[in-house]
């Protein structure tokens, strides 16, 4: 039976739960199809748009998969931390722990044919898009079977077959790229959207507003997602932006402020945004824009999130914020804990079972690391591969030209 009820996350153990007709997850698979309704912890705030409802439908499967995926992402990032300190990962390493809800919630709302593009904090988005732990770790360690063959590194994870366009080191440069991907989607008439993600630091880049203007002008199916973790490396948002309400900075473009530590809020917002970008849902614009004949438009989502680590491994993360702040967020808003509480209160699994899941995840991560450590470095000849595409293009010739073969139609 589908028992649908609202659960307010602020309420913790309530004796009433014992009387519920819900059975524990482990005892029956018929429960997997059950629809649960969860309420997001905070309401959405809209800018020139009516925000979606706070009630999100989910299933036990989804809840458990959220837990598992986020635990895996968390574990991967913490493992990457140790690997960096062991000097197996070099260069820049930007860790995503604390922000997992954004990656997982977004994936739940979209398909692999929608595209995601993000900046350099991309390990977990890559996992969410279907990347494997082994490929991630081998790429981080610069080995030959990494997702970019060891030639990209932490900031350049890509997965073309599932629509993940990277992985970009220069702040803000990925937003025009993302709008270009959306343009191609519109050109080919797929009914897909692109999520162009950026941070609060990149929100002050000019090219972002340029791309936003063009996207709004050309009706591109792009959603700009600002992952606001409140610090642009060492600079707090209030020191960098005159107006830190990033969801409002689109001006004529509607925006939505979302609690980025709540995977269900993220899921709801992304679903809403995808519908909006493809003009599927009915909506009302708050102001009267009589001259807009069409409602399909770009949307800005601001995800209010937080990163526990510093900006990168070279940044301790505590010179510009207090440890109390970090531990405060960890206690009150941690995304994994939130899902854990939800699962426990719906009695979908016991605490011991969840601990087991975490143990399994930890083991998987450790195995992936061990496998990655065994993988060899790229061959020296790889230095010159993939500079140009072969075919109707160039080989870097020496003084003697080689014959070139081509195919006629």
């Amino acid at each position, binding site marked *: 039976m589908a028992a649908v009820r609202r659960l307010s996350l602020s309420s913790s153990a309530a004796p009433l739960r014992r009387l519920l007709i819900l059975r524990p997850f482990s005892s029956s698979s018929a429960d997997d199809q059950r629809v649960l309704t969860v309420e997001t912890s905070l309401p959405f705030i809209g800018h020139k748009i009516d925000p979606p409802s706070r009630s999100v439908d989910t299933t036990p499967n989804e809840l458990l998969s959220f837990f598992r995926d986020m635990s895996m992402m968390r574990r991967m990032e913490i493992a990457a931390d140790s690997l960096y300190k062991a000097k197996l990962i070099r260069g820049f390493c930007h860790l995503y722990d604390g922000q997992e809800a954004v990656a997982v919630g977004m994936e739940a709302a979209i398909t692999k044919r929608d595209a995601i593009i993000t900046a350099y904090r991309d390990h977990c988005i890559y996992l969410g898009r279907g990347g494997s732990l082994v490929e991630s770790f081998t790429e981080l360690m610069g080995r030959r079977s990494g997702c*970019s063959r060891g030639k990209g590194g932490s900031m350049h994870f*890509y997965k073309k077959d599932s629509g993940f366009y990277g992985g970009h080191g220069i702040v803000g440069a990925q937003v025009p790229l*993302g*709008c*270009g991907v959306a343009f191609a989607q519109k050109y080919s008439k797929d009914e897909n959207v692109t999520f162009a993600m950026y941070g609060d630091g990149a929100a002050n880049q000019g090219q972002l507003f340029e791309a936003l203007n*063009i996207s709004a002008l050309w009706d591109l199916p792009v959603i700009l997602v600002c992952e606001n973790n409140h610090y642009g490396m060492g600079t707090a948002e209030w020191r960098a932006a005159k107006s830190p309400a990033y969801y409002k900075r689109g001006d004529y473009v509607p925006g939505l402020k979302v609690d980025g530590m709540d995977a269900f809020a993220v899921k709801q917002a992304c679903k809403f945004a995808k519908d909006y970008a493809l003009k599927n849902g009915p909506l009302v614009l708050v102001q009267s824009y009589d001259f807009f004949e069409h409602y399909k438009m770009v949307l800005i989502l601001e995800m209010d999130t937080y990163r526990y680590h510093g900006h990168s491994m070279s940044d301790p993360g505590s010179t510009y914020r207090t440890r109390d702040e970090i531990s405060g967020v960890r206690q009150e808003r941690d995304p994994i804990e939130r899902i854990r509480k939800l699962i426990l209160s719906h009695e979908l699994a016991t605490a011991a079972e969840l601990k087991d899941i975490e143990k399994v995840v930890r083991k998987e991560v450790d195995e992936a690391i061990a496998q990655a450590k065994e993988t060899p470095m790229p061959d020296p000849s790889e230095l010159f591969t993939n500079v140009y*595409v072969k*075919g109707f293009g160039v080989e870097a010739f020496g003084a003697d*030209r080689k014959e070139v*073969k081509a195919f006629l139609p």
Partner: protein
Amino acid sequence: MAAALQTAAALMASSNLVVNSERFRFGSLLRSPAGRKGSVLVVKSDGRHSVSFNAGLRAGHLITNAVAAKSEASAKSTDSKPGHEVLLFEALREGLEEEMDRDPRVCIMGEDVGHYGGSYKVTKGLAEKYGDLRVLDTPIAENSFTGMGIGAAMTGLRPVVEGMNMGFLLLAFNQISNNCGMLHYTSGGQFTIPIVIRGPGGVGRQLGAEHSQRLESYFQSIPGLQMVACSTPYNAKGLMKAAIRSENPVVLFEHVLLYNLKERIPDKDYICCLEEAEMVRPGEQVTILTYSRMRYHVMQAAKTLVNKGYDPEVIDIRSLKPFDLYTIGNSVKKTHRVLIVEECMRTGGIGASLRAAIIDNFWDYLDAPIMCLSSQDVPTPYAGSLEDWTVVQPAQIVAAVEQLCQ
């Protein structure tokens, strides 16, 4: 000469494409590769080619010349049909139009390319023919629309991005360097960027310093980028078509002063090889390497030189990155003296890199130091007389050759 042709059908067979060809309902143009028999064209470096094919060859065949063959002296030309006369900007437009007809993924982005017809009329009439989704008027936001072109190219579209003046693309330098040039490498080969970035550059008629920039010197170090410079209507059309068909990102440098050159070009479908240099005037005594507008100054100087009894060999290098060291090398081995005439500035220009490349590869064949005539290291002044002094003039070329051949 390696003139390799890869058609849309062959490209569609590659697995890098995301765009579904059926959606464009383009009919027979995008035939499924299963219906074709493979055929191989092997083109050797001196223009001989042998073809072995089973079936399905198109009726016409490819013109493989680097240089437009005049109809009177058409010894090398494989087809003696007379062509038609065009101005250079019309040749560029023809190239664009033919490629847009051939491949529905080709689109044009730039400022005023659509309804206005292009500030140099290169895209005139294309918006009416192909619509606003394929010929896109962008706002004045080079950084972002170049980035958008690159993002679209990542999915398989083939945008042609126009900088109204090449100098404006300095605003998009980050996108061109980091994303355009490097994404193929940093993604381990997953993404190709088949974009063409084109626009007029070079010193014009008193346009001022900011509108007279030569960006080839800034872009030449970007790995993964290919650069070509056109100089005649024939090679403008050929290079445009080749650039659009190439899977690599190509920057096509046009010149503001060359748009009204007139020439008779073939009616047939032809392309110019992107990596190949053009032999303008064969000679025995000294090799003059040049490109773009300076080719005409060199040819003017060549007339004077021939009257004075010299025999210069003039090569339009056309491919600025990578250099066609084969053609250049053969020439150096023959003449043993090199003069480079370029419009870039002396410091860090194409000439500087070319000099280094020749010294590295052909040192033993040189009888004299390589001379390089470049523009002065100054912002281009507005005054006409000063502007003339900034660039290389034919008289200086004559003097340089005389000095070289002493």
